[in-house]
């Protein structure tokens, strides 16, 4: 038996003319089979998309290719030669570089320093200006615009991603793996990224690209491989031979509805009222410039806008994580401006933060510890001065089941969860509290199409149950299908409010045009 199988493999090996060939990859984690005999091929100069549900094993497979994990079984070939990676170093030496779902940069150091970090090249004295120039030139070449001298903490997420890419390119990567690169990007940044990716493939580099957004996959990739529960369900099909619905079906194994229906419903009292809020961002610059808006019970209010126009700061001010320099936040009739986050939590505010690893979860603590974060003092989990472990575990198990969180058991550290499952942990915690007010920042980011559908349903359920929901999203489609009204934010100001889902108006306001101006223009052209 064994003889035959090795011979088979050898035959296949000889046939393989791709830059990367992964054959029969198996990877176990305690309690999960993350990859179950997965085959994967990457051709030179192509963009190959990897699709699959949350926890399907996409990141695991790519981590194996990038030398971060070692496969239990199976073999990897790069440029026709079998390789055994013991570390990311070995992988990068073979020309394989990976940009992770969560970045790995040193915040206090400059872009150039981060790129050079860990290299033996500049040995003793670091001639930074020289390397700044090298980095700048490389950035130019691939359209990765970023200031080499800027410190990482000053950069937006999109810029940090470019640094990660530059880091890999500088190390001579010919094969790039990008794990959900677009999840953290604004639409315009996504376009920039795609330009970069095309520039790279033109220079003969090969790219693997993980995403949950099917339209992106359709737009950028040449071929696609779909994983489901650790197994390949379709391998290397040409993008031209498939459709969005077809891919979705392959991923989740059933038809996916891309639109959810919401019922007509009269909203109730004003729950959240934000009045003329001014605030600064982390760099001490003006981020909010007199924001006024309100959300009533039983309605979903969307906040549209390109990322970085003050959405995060606004959510922070409402939830008490950031001080406002002027203005008022009133929740349920009570002024909670500049009070602690606790005050908001007591008033029934739930918050799905934008940054799930740095703000939303404690990575080394268990799933249980992470889901009880906001009710550990409440019965039955809080008992007197103690935490009732049994009740906490039971609660975590319930949430795991209700939200379909894929994890071997609730004692697992959340750092071991797949990206989408981590998001589900946060969602489970925040939504199960039956909030008065839910501030949801990009709640479906990183989720697979099936899970997105589930979350959108949940948001609508909150609405039916009478919660006030402020939904911040960059997905216009999502905003339009869920929201009763939409505000548009631009450079810390509200440009206007749209209740009829007029996509054109929203688009104009997102680029900084005031509602009034649009109306005036409209009247003019009517005359």
């Amino acid at each position, binding site marked *: 038996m064994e003889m035959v199988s090795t011979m088979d493999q050898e035959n296949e090996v000889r046939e393989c003319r791709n830059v990367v060939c992964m054959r029969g990859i198996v990877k176990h984690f305690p309690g999960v089979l993350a990859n179950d005999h997965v085959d994967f091929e990457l051709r030179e100069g192509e963009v190959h998309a990897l699709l699959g549900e949350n926890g399907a094993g996409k990141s695991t497979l790519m981590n194996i290719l990038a030398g*971060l994990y070692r496969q239990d079984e199976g073999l990897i070939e790069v440029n026709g030669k079998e390789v055994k990676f013991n570390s990311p170093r070995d992988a990068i030496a073979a020309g394989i570089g990976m940009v992770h779902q969560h970045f790995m940069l040193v915040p206090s150091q400059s872009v150039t320093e981060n790129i050079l970090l860990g290299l033996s*090249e500049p040995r003793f004295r670091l001639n930074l200006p020289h390397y700044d120039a090298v980095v700048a030139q490389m950035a130019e070449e691939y359209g990765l615009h970023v200031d080499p001298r800027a410190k990482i903490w000053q950069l937006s997420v999109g810029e940090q991603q470019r640094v990660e890419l530059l880091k890999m390119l500088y190390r001579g990567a010919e094969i790039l793996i990008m794990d959900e690169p677009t999840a953290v990007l604004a639409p315009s940044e996504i376009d920039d990224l795609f330009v970069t990716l095309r520039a790279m493939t033109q220079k003969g580099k090969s790219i693997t690209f993980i995403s949950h957004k099917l339209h992106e996959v359709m737009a950028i990739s040449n071929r696609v491989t779909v994983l489901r529960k650790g197994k390949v369900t379709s391998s290397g099909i040409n993008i031209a031979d498939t459709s969005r619905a077809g891919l979705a079906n392959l991923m989740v194994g059933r038809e996916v509805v891309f639109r959810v229906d919401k019922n007509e419903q009269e909203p109730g009292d004003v729950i959240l009222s934000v009045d003329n809020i001014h605030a600064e961002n982390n760099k001490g610059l003006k981020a909010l410039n007199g924001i006024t808006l309100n959300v009533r019970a039983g309605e979903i209010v969307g906040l549209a806008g390109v990322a970085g126009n003050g959405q995060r700061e606004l959510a922070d001010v409402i939830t008490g994580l950031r001080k406002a320099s002027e203005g008022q936040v009133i929740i349920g009739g009570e002024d909670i401006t500049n009070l602690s986050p606790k005050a908001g939590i007591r008033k029934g505010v739930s918050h799905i933060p934008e940054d799930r690893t740095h703000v939303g*979860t404690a990575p080394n603590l268990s799933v249980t510890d992470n889901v009880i974060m906001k009710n550990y003092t409440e019965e039955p989990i809080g008992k007197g001065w103690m935490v009732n472990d049994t009740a906490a575990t039971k609660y975590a198990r319930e949430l795991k089941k209700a939200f379909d969180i894929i994890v071997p058991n609730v004692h697992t550290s959340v750092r071991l969860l797949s990206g989408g499952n981590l998001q589900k942990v946060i969602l489970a915690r925040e939504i199960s509290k039956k909030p008065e007010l839910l501030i949801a920042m990009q709640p479906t980011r990183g989720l697979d199409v099936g899970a997105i559908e589930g979350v959108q349903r949940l948001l609508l359920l909150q609405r039916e149950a009478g919660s006030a929901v402020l939904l911040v999203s960059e997905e216009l489609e999502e905003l339009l299908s869920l929201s009763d009204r939409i505000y548009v934010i631009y450079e810390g100001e509200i440009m206007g409010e749209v209740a009829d889902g007029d996509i054109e108006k929203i688009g104009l306001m997102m680029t900084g045009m005031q509602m009034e101006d649009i109306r005036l223009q409209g009247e003019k052209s009517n005359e």
Partner: protein
Amino acid sequence: MSESMTSNISPKGRFPFKLKIEPRLKSPSGWFSSMLSFLAVVLALLVGAGIIAAAGGEPWRAYAHIARSSFGSVGVFSDTMVKAIPLMLTGLACTVAFRMRLWNIGAEGQFFLGAWGASLVVLAPILPEETPQWIFIIVMSIVGIAMGAIYGFIPGFLKAKLNVNEIISTLMLNYIAVEWNNYFIYDKWSEGGFQMSKVFPRNAWLPRLADYAKEIPEFRGLTVHFGLVFAIIAAVVVWLILYKSQWGYEIRLIGDNPKAAEYAGIPIARNIILVMSLSGALAGLAGMSEITGVVHRLQGHISPGYGFTAIIIAWLAKLNPFAVLLVSVLFGALILAGREIQPSGVPTMIQGVIMVFLIASDFFMRYRIYFARRKEE
């Protein structure tokens, strides 16, 4: 460019293998870490034996002597425990702070302040000499704990309000604590020109087993004192706080991700102050129990660096309060043995070697080392 990526330790060419060191991708299992610590101690003893032999000594006799002089009889074991008590309490002090990733390296200073606070009760005097023993113990504990707590509160407050790095502030405060004590023993409470206070009245001593020798003859000469009860109670309390209480949950959460804790509505500044105060209180209790259980007067040199050894103990015990008790007994034994066969300096050397090996074993926990064939490259 790509060649420069692999680390290369052995000289190129001759040797067909090369040593590679890589960070571990996942943490090794529990038995591995226990095995490794055990192995480290065994190896350290072997290396120590080699050194003793090289110096012309007889290693096995030296070891037997050390073992006998710290565990050989009830009497010496009792002495070992006496050395272990302050280590247990200061070790717990560090454990509490380290859980929240507050690097309190000021247990030494807090220990001194605890000792000073206990002395204050007798020497100020707060209570008259003829006060009953139980009142003395209660008041001295309270004042000792309070002084240690205040001394922990200061760096906690500085960090919480002004973001002063606690490593530096606690380290500095250690020196101030020693000088503070010196001022009192040189000047205020100096007894007959010596740099020490008068001996405390018997009522202000913690009870020792030896005190009950009249009723139970087996206790004759046993110096182990009531501080051991303090240490055990403290370990239970610390365990309850860290692993069972809501406050312990907050401490763990802040330790792992302060931003998430803030987001969950947990006041971080307040917890920094509270945890530092609790840590200081435990170290203060250590000082109090040492001064009233062993020294019985305020003087210089009341600690051979208990507060610093405590850092290593907390770390080796992996921040488990009960493990702190056990590790402290081991270190207590080494300190005691060091006193017993002082001139040879052997126990101190062994202590050093064990330490080096344990620290090295931590390296193996984090990295894996293996030989790779050159051909594989």
